[in-house]
């Protein structure tokens, strides 16, 4: 048997699926970021499409709500000239009682080349990757609270663009790390890239228990945690954290952890502020920061398309290599 980290690589270390950033080697991440940057430069051109995946079929399998991730995967596949089918599974076969396994086998029979999977259960893309025929690639577009590797990669791309090599940086992640697949994947990605100082800032109820083990320093006081950092990553706060009694109110969260101009001054002068979106103004972030010069949130969205193009291109070229 093999966990997600092992299953996504071929025996010679190439990217077959993208399931997690855990254990993803620095060389592969660098290659993905470099490839994404070449796509990014083509995005500025009048013709945005490249013919790399002409004739290939990408199936977006979304078992869970998503607007922007799904849209950026859609756009990325179209720009690579792939044929794209998007299935909102919540409203189709799953509600008729078909199991995930049967759905999978049916789609396989339709001769897809790549599945982009979002699912509420941790490990679902791994389950699919472990059982699809070997010529289909699987990309995890978010599974439960486990992983969201393309988001982590676009974050790394943004960090590299503005701040350079993560091996020289301090990165603080603020907010609900406990329920955040984004944070978990980013921590693994930063570790792979040799980032020496990763910090988590949150109350005890929003911190997972494995952070120390991953070499992350935890802070309950935001002013201590932000001291001299290069990068601030804010996470979205879900409403249900209040109903689950993990927090008293959004107002109290903002008072303790919300990113304001004065708090941001604790970080380095040229620190950047990131957020996976969609942002809650007045909860995680104050208006003046969201709209201020240090925020790179919309740039992250643009980078997201390039990263997803790079991941699709690389996994499918690995699959193609298997046949040649």
């Amino acid at each position, binding site marked *: 048997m093999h966990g997600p980290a092992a299953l996504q690589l071929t025996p010679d270390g190439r990217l077959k699926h993208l399931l997690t950033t855990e254990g993803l080697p620095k060389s592969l991440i660098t290659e993905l970021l470099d490839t994404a940057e070449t796509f990014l430069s083509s995005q500025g051109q009048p013709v945005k499409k490249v013919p790399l995946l002409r004739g290939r079929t990408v199936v977006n399998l979304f078992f869970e709500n998503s607007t922007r991730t799904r849209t950026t995967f859609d756009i990325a596949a179209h720009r690579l000239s792939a044929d794209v089918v998007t299935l909102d599974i919540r409203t189709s076969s799953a509600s008729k009682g078909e199991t995930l396994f049967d759905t999978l086998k049916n789609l396989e029979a339709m001769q897809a080349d790549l599945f982009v999977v979002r699912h509420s*259960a*941790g*490990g679902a893309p791994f389950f699919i990757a472990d059982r699809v025929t070997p010529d289909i690639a699987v990309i995890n577009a978010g599974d439960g609270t486990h992983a969201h590797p393309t988001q982590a990669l676009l974050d790394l791309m943004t960090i590299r663009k503005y701040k350079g090599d993560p091996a020289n940086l301090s990165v603080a992640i603020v907010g609900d790390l406990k329920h955040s697949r984004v944070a978990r994947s980013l921590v693994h990605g930063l570790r792979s890239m040799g980032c020496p100082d990763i910090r988590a800032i949150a109350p005890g109820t929003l911190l*997972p*228990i494995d952070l120390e083990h991953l070499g992350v320093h935890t802070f309950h006081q935001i002013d201590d945690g932000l001291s001299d950092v290069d990068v601030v990553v804010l996470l979205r706060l879900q409403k249900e954290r209040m109903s689950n009694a993990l927090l008293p109110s959004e107002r109290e969260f903002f008072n303790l952890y919300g990113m304001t101009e004065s708090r941001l001054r604790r970080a380095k002068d040229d620190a950047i502020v990131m957020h996976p979106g969609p942002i809650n103004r007045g909860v995680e972030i104050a208006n003046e920061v969201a709209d201020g010069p240090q925020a790179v949130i919309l740039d992250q969205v643009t980078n997201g398309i390039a990263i997803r193009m790079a991941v699709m291109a690389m996994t499918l070229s690995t699959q193609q290599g298997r046949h040649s």
Partner: protein
Amino acid sequence: MSMIIRNIQIISPGSPLHGATEIGIYQQTFVDPTELTNAAEIDGKFGWLVPGLIDLRINLREPGLEHKGTIASETRAAVAGGVTSVVATPITDPVVDSPADVRLVLERAKESGYCRVFPTAMLSQSGAGNHLSEMAALIDAGCVALAQGNRPFSSRKIELNALKYAQSLGIRVILDSESRDFAEGCAHAGQIGTGLGLSLNSPLSETLGLVADLELVDATGVSAHFSRITTGASVARIREAKAKGLQITCDVTLAHLLYSERALADLDPNFHLERPLRTEDDRLALIAGVSDGTIDLIVSDHSPHETGAKLAPFPETERGMSLVEGAIQLLLQLDQKGELGFEQSISAMTVKAAQVANQPQLGSVQHGHLADCVLFDPNGSTVFDAIHWSSAGTNSPLFGQTLPGRVIGCWIDGQCVTT
């Protein structure tokens, strides 16, 4: 009929025959071979002769869940693992909560079973935890104990009443201690489960449940058996309670002695259990607990499932593992790994289990006791593959493996039952 098994080493902790090299069987009981004339002789070829194992916790799935397993298939699997007596949980569909249900299980076991089946029934009607079941009638119908399985009582008050009532009738209760507030989650709240983004089950769920249950047992004086403890903290609490003089027993599952949370790293749904696998420290504390006698019994918690129940992403699969089929081989494996001596583990599945199941004629190879035994070759090996598999559930880490040790034969009431 009479027979003598020679060239054996009897491993029967606590029996005067422990270490002896031959045994006689006359009709249904063990006898002194010198008393037999014209007996058939069996050459044991220097194998170990062990009392037939008694498994205090097995899910036979019948009635109602025959797509997962039947009394026939699962008792046959038990015999393959050297188990000659099983205590069936009442968790079927519907649950066993009436004398008619108990009689049905006993009749089905008589018709189709390969080993002894001792039923248990629910402490509450329908297992709903609201109304007491007809406990006296259930015991009269043949139950060896009453349990609540994985179904909680609706309140501690109802639980207190159930334990008080059981105590007054001299009935042993089997308790699964767990606090409902914390009991959700498919993985131990530790590094592995957190890293995989799985829903988490805090070890506090067990500690809080156990502490409360121990108080209720102390207050009522009921004879209680605590089933499936999984943490070092629970071992410590049980040890304290026993030192205080509480008349309690407890068990651990084979899976919790063999595996820790690390087994989840590959997201193999076979390791999705009702009680999550805990840390390696917990596993070692459980082994130490069996060694020093704090933990009385080892159970299989055998839970066969149909293939579809495990064919989904880990959190969405059904819980439980099919394990009884390798019971005696797994005990040998624990011995060979230097973790738990074979005599100690055998004691926890024979003589001590007979006491908890109130079957004084079972669990020991000695003259006058019922002749349930296993002839076991410790130098052989067992292949667990599709050809040899008996359980209806292949949801097992054993499937596809080869383990040390081989069951040469099983006898129940002096009759060979090995297929």
